[in-house]
């Protein structure tokens, strides 16, 4: 894709940003979601309310945060409280979107960011752990997952369910005691935008990123993927999106 006027990361950011509605509350994690939220605020969603794990609510994302606790996450915010208040606000149903990443994802949107291979006590690879991921995935109404689209990451069964997706399928979240009406909403990658089938809750291809084929997506997915009847192609990042992203969102080039 090197001849394209944008990088895969920029594509990911712009795609995620478009999913953020004006005036909505969004639980923002470290990395890409921060850039997407900042871009959305500067484009179509000036009243987007970014919510950060350790207490920042409604900040103006002037400078790009590098972590979910730093002062950039509550710069001119409407409130600066603490982690309990924030996660309880999500638990009370106030947070619409939650943005998550992970090392592995399965067809039901279950995420692993804890261990890969071996046993829990003696893993092949030890990852950072849940952090706020499990809380976001449990309480936010619509979680949006940002992933690198690779076969080893899109697996039939994750080694460890750090954050619950639809677990084993329809009704499983509710049976586990998780709030009804919540769960993974979209999976955004540099190859596609995916959703979940309303009945089976299995991952379904909804949109292809510009120039990407269904076959490419299939090759990079380690499980059988449902395909939407009317498959759309996502619009490439506009020059305006790219300009704002590069000049205003991340001029220090922390991420892009």
């Amino acid at each position, binding site marked *: 894709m090197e001849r394209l006027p944008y990088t895969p990361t920029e594509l990911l950011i712009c795609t995620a940003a478009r999913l953020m509605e004006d005036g909505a509350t969004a639980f923002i994690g*470290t*990395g890409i979601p921060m850039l997407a939220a900042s871009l959305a605020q500067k484009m179509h969603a000036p009243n987007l309310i970014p919510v950060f*794990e*350790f*207490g*920042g609510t409604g900040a103006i994302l*002037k*400078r790009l945060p*590098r*972590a979910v*606790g*730093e*002062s*950039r*996450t*509550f*710069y*001119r915010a409407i409130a*600066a*409280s*603490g*982690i*309990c208040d924030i*996660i309880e606000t999500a*638990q009370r149903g106030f947070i619409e979107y939650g943005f998550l990443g992970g090392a592995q994802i399965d067809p039901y949107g279950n995420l692993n960011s*804890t261990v890969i291979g*071996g046993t*829990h*006590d*003696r*893993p*092949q*690879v*030890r*990852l*950072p*752990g*849940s*952090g*706020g*991921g*499990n*809380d976001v995935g*449990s*309480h936010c109404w619509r979680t949006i997952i940002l992933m690198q689209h690779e076969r080893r990451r899109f697996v039939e069964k994750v080694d*460890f*369910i*750090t*954050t*619950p997706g639809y*677990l084993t399928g329809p009704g*499983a*979240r509710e049976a*586990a*005691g*998780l*709030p009804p009406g919540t769960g993974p909403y979209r999976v955004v990658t540099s190859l596609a935008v995916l959703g979940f089938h309303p009945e089976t809750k299995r991952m379904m291809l909804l949109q292809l990123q510009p120039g990407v084929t269904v076959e490419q997506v299939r090759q990079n997915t380690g499980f059988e993927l449902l395909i939407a009847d009317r498959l759309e192609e996502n619009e490439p990042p506009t020059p305006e999106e790219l300009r704002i992203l590069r000049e205003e969102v991340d001029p220090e080039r*922390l*991420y892009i």
Partner: protein
Amino acid sequence: MRVLESGIGELLQPYSMVEFREWNRTQKPKGFQDKRMTEQEAIARFVHDGDYIGTELYGTVRCPMSLAREIVRQGKKNLRAVGQGVLELDLWVAAGLISAMDITYHGLEIHGVSSVLRRAAESGRLKLVEWSNGAIAWRMKAAAMGVPFIPIKSMLGSDTFRYSAAKVVECPFTGEKVCLVPALVLDVGLIHVHRADPYGNAQIDGISGFAFEMARACKRLIISAEEIVDPEEIRRYPERTIIPYYLVDAVVHAPFGSHPGEMAYLYERDDLHMREFLEACRTEEGMQEYLNTYVYGVRNHEEYLERIGHERLSALRRAVLGR
């Protein structure tokens, strides 16, 4: 309301609210005493081998790094820690001080996984019990409330629950499933604040993270502060007190105490130093060298700041984001 499911993780810090009450009654300083002391004295007196320890907020944000480094310098052994951390946990784990951890997140933020954690966990040297970030904060909140557990709606259905020490029960009022997390009573907690008076009354500007909960969940509490103020200033704005003096055992005056992390409205994170650390922590050797240079190689926080250089520090003050 019977127990439907129990996590298989070990309860790393057994507790008794009855004992905690006794401790708070008999071991905490109710009188107004000047508790100011150096990092060396505070850590020597109030952190013991085998303690269950925690810091607030975390590595790169309002973290008591001068205290964290002093713990390494004094080589406290066999500590158990509550793990929301970045830099501070890397120092402790790399120095081999930690035997077990209630972990929620130990990584390098946008820079990914912690090689230090990987080496320790993948070799089986470090025992880990899993929790969500909310669950850890709520466990401290339960202790702060003086109750043995708190019901939450996180963790349900996940392996994070399965490898924790939480339990699932049915709510006797609504019949829904809830996850119960046990109270977390720390042996010792370390919190860095913007200002405190000599008795320990402390204020924090901006987000308070989980300082309110942790301060009330500790048997021993060490406060480090950017500034020591007159008690009259505390009494002028009593609604700003997040940590009242009677919770505090030691007050350490630590300007730039959060370096290389940031302190809201006072100084920015030191990206240069962070890059040096991120490079160093990749390998066992690099990490040891880092420790030699910035921890073992300096006698105290003052010497550490000299090594960083006052020009760099004042640049960090100038770079800070205003209100």
